[in-house]
């Protein structure tokens, strides 16, 4: 792995919230619409209708109450109850029926909305996840070398969580609230212009308050997120290094440090939450005070007789009188109004978080994918009667490069594993060259070894062969073909790689071996396991080949995991193999058995071996000794020993001491 690039320091979860880039929201909405256009429109219509349905009924409520009041007034003047029932109740019933229908529509809309929203939310999250994952698979290795794993992970967990909040709650909430506010305002204006003005003034006060509290809340919220990140980062580090903690009796100190972090976190969290928790009661009670002011102002005006009752509470018809029904309805409306304003203020944080999440998701989606301009492909091949190479439709053990030319003709080149590097320079970062002037050729069937201190550039060379990275200068030819012309997938398919850090995947042992060749039969997998000398210990596992392995392959020793990964490469039966410290944790006895197996498998094919342990590479055809990115010696073991150079020193290092 590339060690020259530092992992970004600092906790993953506690990234500070910065201002969300412009356009993120638009892009997010566009994507949402592209996922679920019709359902989203349906939902928006439903939200609109149900919001109106929530706001409207107060009118009918008013009408019913007014009618009842009218009836009672008439009765107090001597009308009989029965007559009144007859006179007014049909009207009341009509109001109630209209009201019930509005309710019904609202209900239906709410029902459709919530259910569709569940589909949209989960479906969109699924799509975002798969989009990200698909994109991630296309990214060059460089991305993974330069980004901390936790950092990548948090985009799938924390950020997707934030998106869920945004899609399922914030967006519908904002729409609902806006529509309700609009409707309510309109109705308030219809009922009484001046009273509505008072309400609007109050709302301005609420908005300012929420700005003030919410603003300082955001600061504390950020601090909380930061200290949460610190604490969780520390937890992660300590728990991962738990065994070392125990060995060094470090528990009291780690507890002490954790206490510090935890206390800071608690302090900041309390501050942030206090802001959030007090916002609601404050907003609500400003609403309450608003009532009082509303009524007070109204009565004051009446009291001074500056305006008559009728003028203040004049409706649009110009004749509507301020009735008891209007009063109740108006107060209800103003309550609804202030409630919605405070709801909106509560959503502010979630929206910012959601958009920040969206931005980070987009960041991953916008990463430059690995480019592949290759057009030469790898095909199974066979020789026909004339000895020319033709494409075969099944695995023959022989491969060929299919090389289409601009004139439409296709030529086949037999894959032999002839790899040549000419004057290759390379640096992970442009101005820091780590490989200088590397030239080498591996002839078909040869076993080529790289030796050298850590950081000498051994792994880097293999990174170039399979084009995890592209060279800065020089040429790499594979069977005479410039590797830039070979399709990356085919290039990599032709190279089997076993790495020092074994990554097994969740699944059975069998699944893990089969990873090398998805259509391999059980027998082929077992054969490969035998070749890698893994068969005997696999048989000893509780469920043999069906034993479930977790991601970290727990329960297996490091050496056993390496054996499985060798079996995984062996089952792929690749034309060229790269073994990068593949046997470093395997004892030398087992190693010699494994390498005998590998040698027989790779007979006549090219193998690149990287190892610290000289015994691993001693029987290679060519050994390249690397030092600080340059090949300083090359030759067979015997040649190099005879040269009495660096290799000789390494090999006999023990004795040089005396």
């Amino acid at each position, binding site marked *: 792995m590339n060690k020259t690039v530092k*992992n970004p320091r600092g906790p993953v979860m506690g990234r500070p919230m910065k201002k969300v880039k412009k356009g993120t929201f638009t892009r997010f909405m566009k994507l949402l619409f592209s996922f679920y256009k019709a359902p989203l429109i349906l939902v928006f219509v439903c939200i609109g209708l149900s919001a109106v349905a929530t706001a409207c009924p107060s009118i009918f409520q008013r009408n019913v109450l007014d009618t*009842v009041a009218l009836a009672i007034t008439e009765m107090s003047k001597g009308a009989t109850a029965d007559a009144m029932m007859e006179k007014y109740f049909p009207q009341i019933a009509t109001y*109630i029926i209209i009201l019930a229908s509005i309710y019904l529509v609202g209900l239906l809309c709410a029902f459709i909305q919530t259910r569709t929203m569940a589909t949209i939310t989960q479906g969109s999250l699924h799509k975002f996840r798969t989009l990200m994952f698909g994109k991630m*698979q296309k990214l060059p290795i460089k991305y993974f070398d330069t980004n901390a794993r936790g950092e990548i992970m948090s985009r799938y967990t924390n950020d997707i969580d934030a998106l869920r909040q945004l899609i399922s709650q914030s967006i519908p909430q904002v729409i609902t609230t806006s529509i309700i506010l609009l409707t309510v305002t309109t109705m308030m204006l219809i009922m009484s212009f001046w009273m509505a003005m008072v309400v609007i003034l109050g709302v301005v006060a609420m908005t300012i308050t929420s700005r003030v509290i919410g603003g300082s809340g955001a600061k504390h919220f950020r601090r909380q997120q930061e200290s949460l990140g610190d604490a*969780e980062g520390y937890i992660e*580090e300590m728990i991962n290094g738990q065994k070392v903690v125990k060995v060094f009796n470090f528990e009291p100190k780690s507890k002490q440090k954790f206490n510090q972090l935890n206390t800071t976190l*608690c302090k900041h969290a309390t501050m942030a939450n206090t802001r959030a928790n007090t916002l609601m009661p404050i907003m609500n009670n400003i609403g309450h005070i608003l009532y009082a002011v509303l009524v007070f102002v109204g009565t004051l005006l009446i009291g001074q007789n500056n305006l008559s009752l009728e003028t203040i509470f004049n409706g649009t018809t110009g004749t509507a009188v301020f009735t008891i029904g209007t009063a109740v309805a108006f107060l209800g409306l103003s309550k609804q109004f202030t409630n919605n304003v405070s709801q909106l203020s509560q959503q502010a944080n979630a929206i910012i978080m959601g958009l920040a999440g969206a931005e980070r998701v987009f960041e991953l989606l916008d990463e430059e994918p690995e480019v592949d301009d290759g057009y030469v492909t790898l095909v199974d091949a066979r020789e026909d009667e004339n000895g020319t190479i033709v494409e075969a439709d099944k695995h023959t053990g022989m491969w060929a490069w299919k090389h289409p030319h601009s004139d439409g003709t296709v030529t086949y080149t037999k894959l032999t594993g002839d790899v040549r590097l000419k004057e290759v320079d390379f640096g992970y970062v442009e101005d820091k060259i780590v490989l200088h002037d590397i030239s080498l050729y591996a002839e078909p069937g040869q076993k080529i070894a790289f030796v050298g201190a*850590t950081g000498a550039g051994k792994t880097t060379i293999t990174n170039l062969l399979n084009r995890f990275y592209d060279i800065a200068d020089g040429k790499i030819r594979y069977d005479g073909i410039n590797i830039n012309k070979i399709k990356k997938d085919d290039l990599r398919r032709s190279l089997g790689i076993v790495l020092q850090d074994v990554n097994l995947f969740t699944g059975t042992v069998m699944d893990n071996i089969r990873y090398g060749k998805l259509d391999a039969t059980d027998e082929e997998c077992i054969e490969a396991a035998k070749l890698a000398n893994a068969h005997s210990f696999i048989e000893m596992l509780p469920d043999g080949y069906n034993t479930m392995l977790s991601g970290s392959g727990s329960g297996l020793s490091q050496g056993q995991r390496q054996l499985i990964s060798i079996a995984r490469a062996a089952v792929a039966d690749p034309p060229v193999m790269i073994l990068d410290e593949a046997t470093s944790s395997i004892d030398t006895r087992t190693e010699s058995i494994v390498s005998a197996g590998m040698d027989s498998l790779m007979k006549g094919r090219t193998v690149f071996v990287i190892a610290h342990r000289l015994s691993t590479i001693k029987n290679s055809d060519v050994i390249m000794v690397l030092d600080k990115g340059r090949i300083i010696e090359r030759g067979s073991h015997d040649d190099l020993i005879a040269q009495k150079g660096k290799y000789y020193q390494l090999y006999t290092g023990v004795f040089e001491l005396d």
Partner: protein
Amino acid sequence: MECLIPAIAGELITFIQNGNEKLGELFITRWLIELVQGKFGTENITPVIVSICLILVVLAMLSLTFGALAGMHCSRASCGFAKNLRERLFYKSQDFSFENIDKFSTSSLVTRLTTDVTNVQQSFMMIIRTAIRSPFMFIFSIVMAFSVGGKMAWIFVIVLPILLFTLIMVARNAMPIFKKVFKKYDTLNSSIQENVAGMRVVKSFVREDYEKDKFSRASDDVRADFTRAEKILALNSPVMQLCMYSLMVGILFFGSRILISSGGVAFEIGNFSTLLTYGMQTLMSLMMISMIFVMVTMSAESARRICEVLDEETTIKNPENPVTKVENGDIEFKNVYFKYAQRAEKFALSNVNLTIKSGQTVGIIGGTGSAKSTLIQLIPRLYDVTEGQVLVGGVDVRNYDVVTLRDSVSVVLQKNVLFSGTIKENLRWGDENATDEDMIRVCKLACADEFIQGFPDKYDTYIEQGGTNVSGGQKQRLCIARALLKKPKILILDDSTSAVDTRTDAHIRKAFMEEIPNTTKLIIAQRISSIQDADVIIILDDGKINAIGNHESLLESNDIYKEIYTSQTKGAGSTEEGGNK
């Protein structure tokens, strides 16, 4: 959970204050109604209204103050709760033995300390904010409804059970799905993690599309389950609205009938709207209760996982009268049998008998999976033997104070880690009072000084988490230096020089011989050269001692040793490696 203690006080205050807040709100509604009514009663009402308004404002101010105070205490309580929970979990995890750690696996421990605590904290906050308020509100509203609306209030009694029933059914149906899907979700995330970590493997085998398909299927599965559960949950709000609306329509319908037919004497017309308000509030509180119900059930799984850690008994405890001094570096194994899990059929170690004298250098060699690491982990009591005894300095390790024992027995683990911090900070793990000279001395011993001096910041160089910015060999040497700083009586190196080149390796061993001759040194290695000049070489095979001897005698008599030796020297020609110095 007993961690509630500090929160209880806060909760009590919250309770009272919430009550006040709501009471204030209710009174305001009542006053308002009376206000409106009163206004229609008399001609000149200004003074009355002014005074009522003032009362309203005062009430609102009170409600505001108490509401804000409640919010404050609530956040203090819930954050304190989370803090205590985290602290207890962390402390507990720090006291875990290796066996406990193995049982939980690090990633699950981390999740429990982070995500699960956050979940529980959130539902805790919800609970203290609403669990007291909502039932209180509920009862209050019902009582008020009856007092105001008389017979009419029976509508409530008819509607409520329907609502309650639906809410419970919804929760009961959705919960099992949630439980299941959360597990799947975890699996999904761990598969992302595997991919991020193993991207080189994925790309090498050209499995991008395969992984994409696999992921897409798993993700779709999660989506389907979540959608199903959420659709069930989504019934909550329409049902609640249905009840609310029915209530409204019912009250309006029957209310106006009763009012008119009774000629306005059944109840005051103003109470009409009061009744509507209470109807709303009753439903709101019920809705809140159902939400709590959902939240609690959802976080119940997190709570269970947390309790699992808290309830875990540390398997390695100090004895009653611990020995607090390790006399010397003698090690003795008497008929030792060991297995990792009680139910495991096979012993990892069986019938190990061994005597090592203080100051000896012991090499341990053996095949992959031959229990080399297991053997040495018994010495600092990282695990307890299943049968038999391990003695250090003539005393059974189980009789020592664990800290004393581990201070005297320094292990450099095979899977070793450096922590984020400077080199100095890392080294001080071995001895927090170490001077710069001490550190330079041990680093020289471990051949680490040379490369540390090459760093621009020397001993103040910042090590990234997991030691990613130093090479494997450098990391190993730093780990050795750190262990040396403890000035142990016994030093154990578990394959700790595998990434160090042979020459440096030899340097380190030579330094050991000269500088710390009285320390017992146990060296596990793959390379014969690392152990061939040890006083005693132990050959392990499949959990049993195969042979004990020195290089010459083993080369003479032991097949395994001979085989390992030849595998490392064959093809070397005549040559140098075979000889002794």
